[in-house]
């Protein structure tokens, strides 16, 4: 058995002058701030990550209630549960909350913030104060968007994509729209700063021996997500700034109506649409952000699945390098496909975007086969996280296949803006952010809080949600193919859409019931804690080596890092992992199991 190398956080490879300093470390709780002030001034990535996750889950529940409102309205054809205007606010805010305020922040602001430094063996994120700023901007942005409900004119009501000219000041004059736009600015910057932090941490703060190809796949996915954030979000911010200019500073960037030529002697000004801007420009800018955005949302959750499958199959990831390159390929391709959301505009280069969109299925398929390969011939244990990940596989499989269909323009022509698309993206988004997201929650909850969530309640949560998920979204494919458009508050009674919509609404309530089960689980785990220990799942990656929850600056001891499973190698030296990367092509026994396991004789204090 390799001896524990008694050493805390290390790694003097950075060539900046090191400053020995820890603000709140002098005497811990006696001298540092306490209570609310401690939370407000904390720069600890664990505190910030938890704040993000809790805020995001609250927003998730709010957005879920809005979805219920939408489904109640659609359960009958001429329902008046809400007015037409209120309905438009409901689906706009449901989509906006889910996509801008829940899915992304939960993944890269919450889980990644908490887990990535632990997984690379770092004491914190590279820029702790920037990290804290990200959270406060996110919180401010969330409150701003929700304030829309309380201003005259109501919340934003132009759909989460805010197409011009519908989002200009003539068609959407209220302050709710401005609040929505400003919220995007705040949360956009929040995401950009988090992206910077993630990339810097992963590049610079890895522990000794943790080469790039020994990082866990979750960390790899967060690296790629971080770079995608840096590519995509600035474009959204730019688009939104131009929209503000159009709305409040009299420019005509996206608008066409109402432009005139300049008047000259003898020639009065006349309406001249070509003198103006272009609504299609908004779509181009928005979707250049929008498509990478959905992969920013998906990749972290793919990473969660890639963490959970090996642990509960008791095998390493199958095809580690394939996973890494597939992630890079997905991210790369996702930046080149934005106009597949614009096939019906008639002004985009159809074959280019169609081919690249179809090609994204290939690396996604590679990931699928690698997940299956991880499970293959393993010893599968169906804990709650594993169940959720298997549910994710089924959901994303069907959502992915329908996505391939949408990538073909002639098919997109009759499915675009119908419930077929709604079903597609709900299957992929729900499959990733909700199924895999809850897998991550159940998986890492013991590490974060030192206590276990109840397995029986967790399994009940999964099964109820799984059933509800299919009942909700399968009818939507059918009714979309029959011709039901999206974003409609009422629909004709004589077209046979009613029964499918009703079934879909029943499914939505089943899903809602499953979330109630989760709340009960969280409550009982808090009131009657079951202690977890360092590694209740016999998991593989570095974060499971430290205590639950981790101490200040994460590690008092680090095991030798010779593969992507340092904790597994430490606990199961008779089943070593082949290392990947330079010097180890994985085809020989290599260094696995033969580490420089010398015991440190000098005790270096945690600095």
């Amino acid at each position, binding site marked *: 058995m390799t001896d524990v190398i008694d050493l805390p956080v290390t790694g003097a*490879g950075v060539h900046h002058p*090191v400053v020995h300093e820890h603000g709140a470390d002098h005497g811990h709780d006696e001298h540092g701030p306490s209570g609310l002030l401690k939370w407000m001034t904390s720069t600890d990535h664990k505190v910030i990550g938890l704040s993000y996750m809790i805020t995001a889950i609250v927003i998730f529940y709010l957005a879920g209630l809005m979805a219920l409102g939408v489904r109640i309205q659609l359960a009958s054809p001429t329902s008046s549960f809400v007015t037409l205007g209120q309905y438009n606010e409901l689906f706009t805010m449901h989509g906006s909350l889910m996509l801008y305020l829940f899915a992304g922040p939960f993944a890269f602001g919450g889980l990644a913030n908490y887990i990535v430094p632990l997984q690379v063996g770092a*004491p914190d994120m590279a820029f702790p104060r920037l990290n804290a700023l990200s959270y406060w901007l996110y919180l401010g942005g969330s409150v701003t968007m929700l304030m829309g409900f309380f201003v005259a004119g109501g919340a934003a009501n132009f759909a989460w994509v805010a197409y011009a000219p519908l989002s200009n000041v003539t068609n959407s004059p209220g302050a709710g729209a401005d609040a929505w736009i400003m919220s995007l*600015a705040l949360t956009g910057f929040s995401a950009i700063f988090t992206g910077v932090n993630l990339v810097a941490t992963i590049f610079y703060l890895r522990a*000794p021996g943790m080469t790039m190809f020994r990082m866990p796949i979750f960390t790899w996915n967060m690296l790629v997500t971080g770079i995608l954030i840096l590519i995509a979000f600035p474009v959204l911010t730019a688009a939104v700034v131009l929209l503000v200019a159009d709305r409040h500073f009299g420019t005509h960037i996206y608008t066409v109506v109402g432009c005139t030529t300049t008047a000259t002697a003898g020639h009065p000004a006349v309406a001249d649409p070509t003198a103006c801007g272009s609504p299609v420009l908004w779509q181009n800018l928005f979707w250049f952000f929008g498509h990478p955005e959905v992969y920013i949302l998906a990749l972290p959750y793919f990473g969660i699945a890639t963490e959970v499958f090996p642990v509960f199959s008791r095998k390493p990831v199958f095809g580690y390098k394939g996973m890494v390159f597939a992630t890079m390929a997905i991210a790369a391709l996702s*930046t080149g496909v934005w106009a597949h959301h614009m096939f019906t505009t008639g002004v985009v280069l159809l074959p280019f975007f169609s081919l690249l969109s179809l090609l994204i299925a290939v690396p996604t398929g590679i990931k699928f086969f690698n997940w299956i390969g991880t499970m293959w011939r393993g010893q599968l244990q169906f804990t709650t996280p594993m169940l959720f990940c298997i549910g994710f596989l089924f959901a994303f499989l069907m959502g992915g296949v329908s996505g391939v269909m949408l990538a073909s323009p002639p098919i997109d022509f009759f499915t675009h803006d119908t419930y077929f698309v709604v079903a597609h993206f709900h299957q992929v988004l729900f499959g990733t952010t909700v199924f895999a997201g809850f897998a991550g929650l159940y998986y890492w909850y013991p590490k974060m809080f030192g206590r276990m969530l109840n397995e029986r309640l967790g399994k009940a949560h999964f099964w109820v949600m799984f059933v509800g998920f299919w009942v909700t979204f399968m009818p939507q494919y059918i009714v979309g193919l029959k011709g039901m458009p999206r974003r409609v508050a009422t629909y004709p009674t004589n077209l046979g859409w009613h029964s499918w919509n009703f079934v879909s609404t029943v499914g939505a309530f089943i899903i809602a019931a499953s979330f109630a089960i989760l709340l009960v689980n969280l409550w009982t785990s808090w009131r009657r804690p079951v202690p977890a220990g360092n590694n209740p799942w016999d998991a593989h990656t570095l974060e499971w080596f430290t205590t639950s929850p981790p101490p200040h600056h994460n590690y008092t001891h680090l095991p030798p890092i010779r593969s992507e499973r340092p904790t597994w190698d430490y606990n199961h030296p008779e089943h070593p992992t082949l290392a990947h990367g330079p010097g180890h092509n994985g085809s020989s026994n290599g260094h696995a199991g033969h580490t420089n396991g010398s015991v440190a004789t000098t005790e270096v204090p945690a600095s």
Partner: protein
Amino acid sequence: MKIEGLFLLGVGIFFGAIGIAYWLLSYEDGGGMMLLGACLLGLLPGGFYYYWHRRFLGYRYFYWGKLERTVGVRLEDRPDATIEEGAGVVNSFPGSSIWPFCLGMGAFLLVLTFIFGVWFVAPAVGLILVAAVGVTAESRRGGHV
């Protein structure tokens, strides 16, 4: 550092290739510009990292062909690095700071001007300035005000 450099240079080269293909196929300004921007986003830091990788290896002159491996690689890039080799201090991690909250709330108030009126700019900009000064002073003193 080499892998990071290649990673980002790869991003830049990918966007360059896609951008050229897209431009030649469509002559569309919006997409072409965005792809060009993304290309630069990759080439700039990627080139920086790659340059420093070669400097770190001890090349005296930065030109192709001089391949003297003198200094070695960072600990986190060496597959056989041990934990005790990395003993010592990592970096400065400010333990607690009020300034991110201050700056965040300042930005929040700034955007609320669109709801509550222009007069909100005053407290907002005030908070932002205070936070900017505060965080700079904090950094100069090594992260603790």
